[in-house]
């Protein structure tokens, strides 16, 4: 080990700043009275924004590119783009959460510190260059999330969801750790580069790698929520307060992409035949279970949970391609999914108010008559999820399918066709939401104009978020190019 130097510390400035600010916030929050809680809120948002600037600066400064701490921490294009969008979607989640939390008397400092530490975990995760950093980041992400799900502690369903999440999440971490230990046993290394290199030196234990890869893939699938390791997802989405569901549903998907990319491409690339075959099964099951079960849901959050599973299926298609193009496509998919999901859950929170939890699809009934603007916004979000052109969801599906078809001799054509057919089946339940909003009259009890939260920041940012889906769908070229560049440089 080299002695610690500034060259090691400088690339970590964004994470260091975030950590220090969170510690200060944690303390400062104790002295902020409940009536002034918004200070914590805006401070946290500002900290995330400033961290984003630091990430941007760290990327612009080419002397910081590469790795730090003997390869434990990577600072490359993929890390930068993942971090920026993790910070962006997390900030969105905070802004959308405020009116919701206030209305439910959950507006406490804990929400912000826990979210902040989860963000820190994600930043670390996407920069991991070593099995241990990856695991550390993953746990730093997971632990605050367990607590966040139980934020509404008097709600039985929340508590149940938190316990389920914790038990299954711990199991997943265990699987991942077990896989890592197998790979460590076979290669004698924890560093991604060394693990890759070990493949060349003709290992005496190929079966050890096989088991290791299998467990690592299972761990990743758990974290993504890919079928058949998706059981926690619907319960957690439904049980958690919507503000937390929004957070879990958006930024961690980008982090999960980072985890999968670092592990599968960075470390386990020589064994891609193993994980590719496993991913094909995961994709098929995720598409099938996600789309078919979503049709049967009446609860909006549960429906989005199953839709997430199917989107994970699409995202993993990019990994199956096992090419730079495929990883770039998966990255673009993760980003566009996170941005779309933010808007979707944000709109769901817009409908909720004191004493009324908008959760059922039926709660959207007649939204067009009650508030045409937000009905239009919701329609755009649903159309983006469904992959209708002119919205970003279409471009995301297009790049992923294109990458998967680009596999040698189009041998995965069948999988691409299956994915396409499931995209049509998936369109059905998104259309159902549009149908409820536009074609049905509002329920008797709620037929007046939609009572909107006073929070103007929430409303403006939400509308901007949805219009960004349209903007990215039409002018998404630069973002795709950015993803391609990030993967190519990394």
């Amino acid at each position: 080990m080299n002695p610690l130097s500034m060259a090691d510390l400088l690339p970590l400035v964004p994470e260091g700043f975030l950590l220090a600010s969170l510690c200060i916030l944690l303390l400062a929050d104790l002295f902020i009275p409940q009536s002034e809680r918004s200070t914590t809120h805006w401070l946290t948002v500002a900290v995330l924004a400033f961290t984003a600037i630091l990430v941007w600066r760290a990327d612009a400064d080419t002397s910081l590119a590469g790795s730090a701490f003997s390869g434990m921490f990577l600072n490359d294009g993929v890390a930068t783009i993942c971090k920026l969008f993790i910070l962006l979607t997390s900030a969105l989640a905070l802004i959308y959460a405020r009116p919701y939390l206030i209305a439910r008397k959950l507006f406490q400092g804990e929400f912000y510190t826990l979210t902040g530490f989860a963000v820190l975990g994600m930043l670390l995760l996407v920069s991991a260059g070593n099995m241990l950093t990856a695991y550390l980041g993953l746990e730093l992400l997971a632990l605050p999330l367990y607590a966040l799900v139980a934020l509404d502690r008097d709600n039985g369903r929340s508590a149940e969801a938190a316990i389920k999440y914790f038990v299954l999440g711990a199991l997943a971490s265990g699987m991942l750790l077990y896989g890592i230990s197998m790979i460590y046993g076979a290669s004698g290394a924890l560093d991604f580069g060394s693990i890759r290199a070990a493949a060349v030196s003709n290992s005496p234990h190929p079966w050890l790698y096989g088991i290791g890869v299998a467990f690592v893939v299972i761990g990743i699938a758990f974290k993504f929520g890919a079928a058949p390791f998706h059981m926690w997802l619907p319960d957690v989405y439904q049980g958690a307060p919507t503000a937390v569901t929004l957070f879990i549903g958006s930024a961690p998907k980008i982090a999960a992409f980072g985890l999968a990319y670092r592990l599968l491409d960075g470390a386990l690339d020589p064994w891609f035949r193993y994980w590719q075959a496993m991913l094909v099964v995961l994709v098929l099951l995720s598409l099938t279970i996600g789309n078919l079960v979503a049709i049967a849901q009446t609860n909006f959050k549960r429906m989005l949970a199953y839709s997430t599973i199917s989107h994970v299926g699409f995202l993993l298609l990019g990994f199956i391609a096992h090419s730079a193009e495929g990883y770039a496509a998966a990255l673009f998919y993760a980003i566009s999914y996170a941005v779309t999901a933010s808007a979707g859950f944000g709109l769901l929170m817009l409908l909720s108010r004191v004493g009324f939890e908008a959760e059922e699809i039926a709660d959207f009934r007649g939204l067009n008559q009650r508030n045409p603007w937000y009905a239009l916004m919701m329609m755009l979000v649903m159309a983006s999820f469904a992959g209708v052109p002119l919205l970003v969801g279409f471009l995301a599906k297009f790049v992923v399918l294109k990458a998967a078809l680009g596999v040698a001799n189009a041998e995965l054509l069948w999988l691409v066709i299956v994915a396409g057919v499931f995209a049509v089946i998936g369109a059905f339940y998104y259309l159902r939401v549009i149908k409820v909003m536009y074609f049905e009259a509002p329920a008797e009890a709620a037929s007046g104009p939609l009572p909107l939260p006073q929070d103007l920041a929430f409303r403006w940012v939400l509308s901007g978020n949805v219009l960004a889906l349209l903007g990215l769908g039409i002018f998404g070229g630069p973002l795709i190019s950015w993803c391609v560049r990030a993967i190519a440089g990394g």
Partner: protein
Amino acid sequence: MSQHLLSWLIWLPILGAVATVVMGSTSPQRARWIALSTALLTFGLSVFLLLNYASDQPALQFDENAPWIVALNLRYHLAADGISLALIALTTFTTVLVLVGAWASVSDRVHQYLASFLLLESFMLGVFCARDALLFYMFFEAMLVPMFIIIGIWGGPRRVYATLKFFLYTFFGSIFMLVGLIYMAVETGNLDLTYLANYPFTEREQFWLFLAFLIAFAVKVPMFPVHTWLPDAHVEAPTGGSVILAAIMLKVGGYGFLRFSLPITPDAAHELAWLVIALSLIAVVYIGLVALVQDDMKKLIAYSSISHMGFVTLGMFVAVLLVRESMISATGSVDGARLALQGSMVQMISHGFVSAALFSCVGVMYERVHSRMIKDYGGLANTMPWFAALMVFLSMANSGLPGTSGFVGEFMVILASFQSHPLIAASAGLTLIIGAAYTLWLVKRVIFGAVVNPPIAKLQDVNARELLVLGGFALASLVVGLWPAPLVSLMDGSVNEVLQQLSRVKI
């Protein structure tokens, strides 16, 4: 501005739609005027394009080409040839009349209704201008959303079922086209339609690509046996929705064949022409017979649409056969193929006017009587003479009476198919009997006879606005019927270009 005429054409209705929604939400009347002036302006622009189009040059004109999504090598490439321009003019013309027709008949959420039509117009114009396959696909799919909303909100009692069926059917069809596009993108790295038309796809590739395109466009046209969404959608759609659906959206399918199936996969088109011709003939004959037994007027016209669209696909693929035959024959003349293709194009335009007009007629009747059932009518000629006159004329056009546009296209296609095989011509010729049968029988039951139903006796004749809509369509049909030469010469260069592409053996 002259550099970006087609962009203006596409984006103008979108701007108009935004203005209609924003400024017209409080005052329906203001929404109507904004929408109508947008549509008129777009129509004016399309007329300007027509006048400035050099029909003696087959090349694409008004070209716009800018990088769009660089990472995927996609370009924002718009251009128009004679065929596109004819359909563009049809689109803008029909949209104006649809908006006029909706003036008094729609009173619920007027601004949203009008804005949906303007959005729809812009997407349809986009389809006819796009020269990049993915750009085409995006417009092709985006069209579904406004139509979904139009049928779903302003439609009849079973509108939700009909609109979901419409959306999912077409979405399903186009997914295969998307896979085909992705395959081509991976294979060639370029999705420009001109480039793809020149790219040497192998026999196997062409075969599968052709099938992928066939599914997408056959659903859209629609061809037998994937036509079942159309009657439902037509029956439930509001009048304007039916008119646009019949007049333009179906043409998008035919246009797709012309831009994708024929140029990109000419050999597969030749190999599988028998399949498309067979399906077209089934549509012409069998669906014509189905139309005969309908007692819902909208359903009857919907089936008649399918039957007439059969001529469009028939003409195109007879042209494929004739081009390939001419290459091995001694004379090498492609006159027959040209006739078939021209007939097919004229049939598209003509059907646009005639079916739109007939759906408008049903709309006029429905507004007064609130029924689409034939048995609720009878003797309209006594109470609504002007309307009766127009409806009779339009029905004649629908059954292909010489002097109307309906005759020109069908006659050209039948004439050309004789050169291919007399049996094809004979089966297609049956339409003259079947088409006349169901149309005239409809007219007899609705227009003529004594007034039996009391509500009919109290009916008012068409007002000036309705007269304008029906008269506009009727006049267009008459002009094309009596003097098709300008339309044919407008498309002549482009038709020759398609024939040229068809004669290119890639394998």
